[in-house]
């Protein structure tokens, strides 16, 4: 194998350490190098996906120590699918932000690019690592970058949102450490596969206490109610490419960590129902909060939290079809929400106002961006010819299969709520009258390429969902086949 999973982490690290030097050679290095690295990660993803389709899952050993003893990186169809999705979206977000950052002053670009790149690399690390403490380290990498990026703009609210996020993140890491400690004393190992293997021998009381610590810690990362108070502030105060990254990359990694710990490591009865109920409450509260928002980015942020709730509901149902729907929704949400944040950011950029009411008639100023925003809004509500329809459809079917009537009613109700607040915005964009001078900031060509590739994905997958469905299906199978995961990783012992 020429390319191994560790390249995902090593390439960004080399770039991050080298950028302070490279910037002395060429002042644009700080902006271009991350793009090269993120593109390289896309190549790594495609190569690895190809490899596991032929040869089965990869468990790479690090420092030469086989799986339970050393740290290992695991690429199964499930983790590979998420890592591919994250790296492609990461690259597209970089492409979108490439010219955007010209508006920042010289010294800051370096910091911004390093933090943004490491946030994406850390998210991939969370997804591919097979070791629970290593996951903690990656969560901290993502966390530190995310706190700094939230406070990146000099506006006062940025620092406040960043501090709030940091405080809640501090709780998360404290609880995660406590959970890891309890698990370590009971199993004597830190490898997730071996923990899962030894979990049946752990006393029930220990198991539940540890699970609660993990749920609290990772629930914060995955934006689960009632631990998601940081999310709307962080999303709305961060620079727009970072908001898109929060929605498309960081929340995916958070949900992954939660699912990996709950589904693979623990075998506690009833935790599925807990996930379902918490997802339901998260979704309902977030969507209701979204209606009353006056600020565009805050509204999108609450909508993101709501979508994460729906993902958790689907994972909570736990049938193969539901997990399939959940993964499909994670993909769709990443793509569509990135598009919405990208388009929304141009509105804000042009009106200098984050308020929804300032969007009146902006269609005339920015026709293409408005079109993309409308497309994204329709797709996320779940209108039929777009990709968002299919994920919601499969989740509804799986809920119907398991006869969870209240879930079906809830999801349909939430769809109506989403319809209300998204169409309100789209209506303002297209139909409200507003006189004004022509747009001062036209979208740059790279931003248009980024947005249209996302839009293309939404339409193509909406019409031909079969293009992507086999991959998602194998990812769902890989997640649910826990014994295979354990066996494959632990079989190579020296």
């Amino acid at each position, binding site marked *: 194998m020429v390319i191994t999973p560790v390249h995902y982490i090593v390439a960004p690290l080399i770039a991050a*350490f080298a950028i302070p030097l490279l910037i002395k050679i060429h002042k644009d290095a700080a902006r271009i190098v991350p793009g090269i690295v993120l593109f390289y990660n896309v190549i790594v993803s495609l190569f690895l996906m190809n490899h596991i389709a032929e040869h089965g899952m990869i468990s790479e050993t690090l420092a030469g120590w086989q799986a339970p003893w050393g740290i290992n990186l695991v690429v199964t169809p499930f983790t590979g699918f998420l890592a591919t999705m994250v790296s492609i979206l990461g690259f597209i977000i970089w492409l979108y932000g490439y010219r955007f950052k010209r508006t920042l002053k010289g010294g800051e670009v370096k910091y911004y690019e390093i933090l943004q790149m490491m946030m994406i690399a850390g998210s991939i690390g969370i997804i591919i690592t097979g070791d629970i*403490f290593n996951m903690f380290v990656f969560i901290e990498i993502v966390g530190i970058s995310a706190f700094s990026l939230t406070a990146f703009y000099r506006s006062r609210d940025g620092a406040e949102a960043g501090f709030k996020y940091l405080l809640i993140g501090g709780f998360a890491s404290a609880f995660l450490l406590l959970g890891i400690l309890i698990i370590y004393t009971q199993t*004597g190992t830190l490898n997730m596969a071996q923990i899962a293997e030894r979990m049946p021998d752990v006393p029930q009381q220990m198991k539940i206490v540890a699970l609660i610590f993990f749920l609290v810690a990772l629930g914060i990362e995955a934006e689960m109610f009632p631990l998601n108070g940081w999310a709307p502030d962080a999303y709305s105060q961060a620079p727009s490419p970072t908001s898109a990254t929060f929605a498309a990359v960081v929340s995916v990694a958070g949900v992954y960590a939660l699912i990996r710990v709950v589904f693979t490591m623990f075998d506690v009865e009833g935790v599925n129902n807990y996930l379902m109920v918490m997802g339901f409450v998260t979704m309902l509260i977030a969507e209701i909060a979204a209606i009353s928002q006056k600020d565009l980015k805050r509204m999108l942020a609450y909508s993101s939290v709501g979508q994460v709730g729906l993902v958790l509901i689907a994972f909570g149902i736990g049938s193969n079809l539901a997990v399939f729907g959940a993964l499909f929704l994670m993909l769709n949400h990443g793509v569509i929400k990135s598009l919405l944040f990208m388009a929304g950011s141009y509105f804000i950029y042009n009106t200098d106002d984050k308020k929804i009411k300032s969007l009146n008639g902006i269609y005339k100023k920015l026709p293409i961006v408005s079109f993309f925003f409308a497309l994204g809004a329709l797709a996320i509500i779940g209108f039929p010819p777009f990709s968002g329809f299919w994920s919601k459809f499969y989740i509804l079917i799986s809920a119907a299969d398991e006869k969870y009537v209240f879930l079906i009613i809830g999801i349909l109700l939430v769809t109506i709520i989403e319809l209300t607040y998204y169409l309100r915005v789209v209506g303002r964009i297209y139909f409200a009258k507003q006189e004004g001078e022509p747009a001062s900031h036209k979208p740059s060509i790279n931003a248009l390429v980024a947005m249209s590739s996302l839009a293309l994905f939404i339409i193509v997958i909406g019409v031909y969902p079969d293009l992507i469905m086999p991959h998602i299906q194998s990812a769902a199978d890989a997640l649910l086949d826990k014994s295979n995961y354990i066996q494959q990783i632990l079989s190579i012992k020296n």
Partner: protein
Amino acid sequence: MLKKLIVFLLIGTLGYTLAVTFSSIPIGANRIGSLDNPETVAAYYLDKSPNDLKVANTITAVVVNFRGFDTLGEVSVLFLAATGLASILYRKEEEEEEEENKRHISHRLNLPSSSLVQTGAKILFPLILLLGIYVFIHGHLTPGGGFQGGAIIATGFLLMLVSYKGFKNNHKIMVWLESLAGLGFVGVGLYGLIRYGSFLQNTGWTGNLNDLVSGGLIPLIYIFVGIKVATELTNVLDILLNIKSRRK
């Protein structure tokens, strides 16, 4: 009042849960098991560290080799914290100059910087530097290592920064050292990947237990970690000390 009640309830629950949970995990019990047929990672590490890696300090072996990837991540956490700090406290140059003109006082720590203190700092600084370097070079033999040595060196720089108002870090050298140490760490890892097929893998040659030159690449990595941590911490302190207050 209600908030206070909720907080106390929360804290009480947490304390009670921890107390109950840990009371059934006794301190001092041997959870490692036998070293000959290791069931736990701890037993495996205690067995392999002196015999395979020839590293006397098992913690160094764990931190640098068995779980070296964590250490790489940890070094990058520090690096990102320094970057984030710089980005959060970054001020545009014009703004800074303007303020500089308004008042020439920089609110560095106003500790006494008499000539006595300065001479003391001058004498202590090389000693602290030497101690730090000693700690991370002997990281595989005695307690201590890259983090400890790096932190000690950073306190040495702190001493200089505080006692000499004019003392400026040579930023160029710092940036170079920091980047090269980081790249060196990754480079040693890549050497393992290319030569032996596993990232961060140690060389086959490991020397004798308790020799200064032993443990293969482990001392080298710890030296890189030491330099990196020292420069990063100095960086953090330097940024914080250079804040110009806008107090009235």
